[in-house]
């Protein structure tokens, strides 16, 4: 739940906020407006909107500073006088905002003319904001000096979100009111694109710097001027564009080649490796060569010999399989069964050929991690409903005693023979026997 409220919800609502805002501004710019109702009712509006906006702007600015520069903020608020000032300002702003918002809600509910311009979303927004401000005030009252502690709790939490390494530990221990305040904030963010709140994104700061008069020409004046003057396009302008164009491309080319040439040369020249690096590299290659040669040796062995040693029976384990390579150069697993005799089974998943893992679970199954098939090691059968349908083929084996005499065999189908008689195997000598695989069991399998 926490993960949803404080990780899922934030990302969800910020995504909604960003995408929704862009879509709204692009697709329905006409719908973006402050939706002022001053023309319909002005007295109560003046009493409500001014304190509300001033209060909430101060509050938002405060929240933003604590979030953006938590370290500076923390060191500043370490000064008690500063902290006190900040808190007092915050309280005053919150009181103003709450009063203003209350007035706005009241006004909207009681004024007949305003009903004509009130939709459900307006009410949702007003209600949500009111609750949020009140919760905020209650946070400030119940968990004092929020200006200070927020820098160590909520700010890192927000940063962890922002850097895509969400860390819930910061919010886990916060008091319920703070958590509610956070949750509501995320909810509010998500609502912005669908409500009048979107007008907050059109704060016209550009007004401070723009020229008083705005004249928009539908035709390009200079072009028109040139056309008029030369009875067509002025060759001068045309040439200027051409020169500028070539100049731009040339500059880009020079920059690129300056940046790229040395890197290209460096790439092909390669780096003279340091000794240690060279050693590492050669070691790695050698190791791979060794592994390859090992593999080829295995292959050769399988071509040449009729039987190959897998392990001492004593080395096998009922819970932990031992990998070996079967006659077809495919991985296989060896276990010790409940009857102390070996179980040899192919480790190549019959679904898509992944190598099956070697750990046996409580049900006596091994797992293919690719598509989650559990195979019973005794029968090789996959669990019902598994992607793999066919059982893992069992592999036949020979048991040889230390003298090299075959004392017992089992073929792929599970048929056992005791060439020396069943009595030839002393139960206590089992661990000393060697497990072999034989070509004759695998051919045609």
């Amino acid at each position, binding site marked *: 739940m926490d993960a949803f409220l404080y990780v899922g919800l934030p990302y969800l609502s910020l995504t909604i906020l960003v995408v929704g805002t862009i879509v709204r501004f692009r697709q329905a710019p006409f719908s973006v407006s402050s939706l002022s109702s001053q023309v319909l009712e002005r007295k109560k509006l003046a009493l409500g909107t001014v304190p509300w906006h001033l209060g909430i702007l101060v509050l938002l600015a405060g929240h933003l500073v604590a979030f953006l520069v938590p370290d500076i903020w923390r060191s500043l608020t370490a000064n008690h006088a500063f902290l006190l000032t900040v808190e007092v300002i915050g309280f005053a702003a919150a009181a103003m905002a709450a009063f203003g918002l209350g007035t706005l809600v009241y006004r909207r509910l009681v004024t007949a003319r305003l009903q004509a311009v009130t939709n459900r979303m307006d009410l949702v927004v007003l209600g949500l904001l009111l609750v949020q401000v009140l919760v905020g005030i209650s946070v400030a009252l119940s968990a004092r000096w929020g200006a200070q502690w927020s820098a160590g709790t909520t700010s890192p939490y927000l940063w962890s979100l922002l850097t895509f390494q969400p860390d819930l530990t910061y919010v886990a221990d916060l008091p319920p009111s703070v958590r509610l305040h956070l949750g509501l904030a995320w909810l509010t963010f998500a609502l912005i694109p669908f409500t009048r709140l979107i007008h907050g994104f059109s704060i016209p700061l550009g007004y401070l710097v723009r020229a008083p008069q705005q004249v928009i020409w539908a035709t390009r004046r200079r072009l028109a001027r040139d056309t008029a003057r030369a009875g067509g396009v002025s060759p001068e302008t045309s040439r200027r564009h051409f020169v500028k164009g070539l100049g731009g491309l040339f500059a*880009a080319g020079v920059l690129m080649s300056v940046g790229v040439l040395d*890197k*290209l040369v*460096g*790439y*092909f*020249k*390669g*780096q003279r*490796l340091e000794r240690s*690096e060279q050693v590492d*590299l050669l070691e*790695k*290659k050698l190791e*791979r*060569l060794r*592994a*390859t040669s090992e*593999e080829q040796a295995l292959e050769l062995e399988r071509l040449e010999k009729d039987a190959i040693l897998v392990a001492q029976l004593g080395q096998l384990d009922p819970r932990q399989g031992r*990998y070996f*390579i079967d006659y*077809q*150069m*495919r*991985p296989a697993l060896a276990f010790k069964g409940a009857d102390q005799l070996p179980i040899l089974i192919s*480790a190549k998943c019959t*679904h*898509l*050929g*992944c*190598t*099956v*893992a*070697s750990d046996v679970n409580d049900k006596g199954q091994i797992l*293919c*991690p*690719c*598509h*989650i098939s559990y195979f019973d090691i005794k029968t090789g059968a996959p669990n019902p409903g598994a*992607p793999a*349908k066919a059982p893992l083929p069992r592999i036949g084996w020979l048991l040889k005693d230390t003298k090299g005499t075959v004392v017992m065999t089992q073929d792929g189908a599970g048929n056992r023979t005791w060439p020396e008689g069943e009595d030839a195997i002393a139960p206590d000598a089992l661990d000393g026997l060697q497990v072999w695989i034989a070509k004759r069991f695998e051919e045609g399998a």
Partner: protein
Amino acid sequence: MKPATRTRRFVAFLAERLPAEKMSLQAMVQKKEVPVHRWSWAYYLGGLALFFFVIQIVTGLMMLFYYEPSVATAHASVEHLTNNVPGGALIRNLHAWSSSAMILSVMLHLLTTFAMKAFGRPRELTWVSGVLLLFLVFGFGFTGYLLPWHQIAVNATKVGLGSIEQFGEYLPGDLADLPRQIRETIQGGATVGQATLSRFYAIHVVVLPLISLGLLGFHLLSVQLHGMSPGVDRPTGRTEKFFPLFILKDLKVWGVVFLMLAVVAICIPFDAFLDYPLGAPYNPLGSTPDGIKPEWYFFWMYYPLELLPFWLVAGGMGVLQVGLLLVPRIFRGTSRKVLRTLAAAAAVYLIVITLFGQAIYEMFSGGH
């Protein structure tokens, strides 16, 4: 129908698709115009794919200077390229990012072309060659993935090739063994090994590029021959010159895209998104690592494969492939509005399965 008329009709068909009278530089370049409307951005996608393809060729060639295609050395050479060669990591990264970008733009190109009904007469062959190019691009992705020869790559290839064998279950009698034989022919042996690496290397570096160049040439030629499809139902008021107006605009887009690609390639190694980066070389005795997945661009068929019966998905893929090739025939009479809806639905499917495939998979497979 008499053979003579059939031949004549075939010739007429070809003549319309490949009009000789238009095969002049003047007709293809100077006179070509690009319609201007609100879907015009879609005209950039094919060019973008081409651009990424060029990047792939350049970076791929550069990597060939260091890559050693043998089981013993492939991984070490890639590691050497990444860790020791100046700019090697960047080149490899560019190759990786640009491959993803190429596949993305090819897919988008397909969808928008479909939505704009740009496959209509006489552009059927353009569409068909485009679909073939799409298959090739996936082939590039599949073969290229194996080349670093690390644990994931080899196992993923095993899985990919393994699915061929599954067809055997649905074939009768003697044919049942055919898929296995096909598979072993592709991988050059009973298991994925040196032979597979050599073959994939050859396919990735020589065969596919050659075929793509040919197909691409044909694709571009027919695009130039027939010009840009109007793309919208209403007659478009304005057009602009293809050369040099649109070309230059194209170049502009390329420039910006290259900037973005370069920044991404410099700053975010592609490996960072993988659970298993270059990591350990392939170890035939090691078990398959947990949770291996193909690259994102295979998700659209990987997750259905995981969740649905194989025969259903395999059949669906077959139908889809044939259907894609036959699109100009099937959707001859469909309005652009309907096509647009279909394309949007396909896009939604692709986006959802690519982004949330894992979550969906976990939801339905019982949280493994």
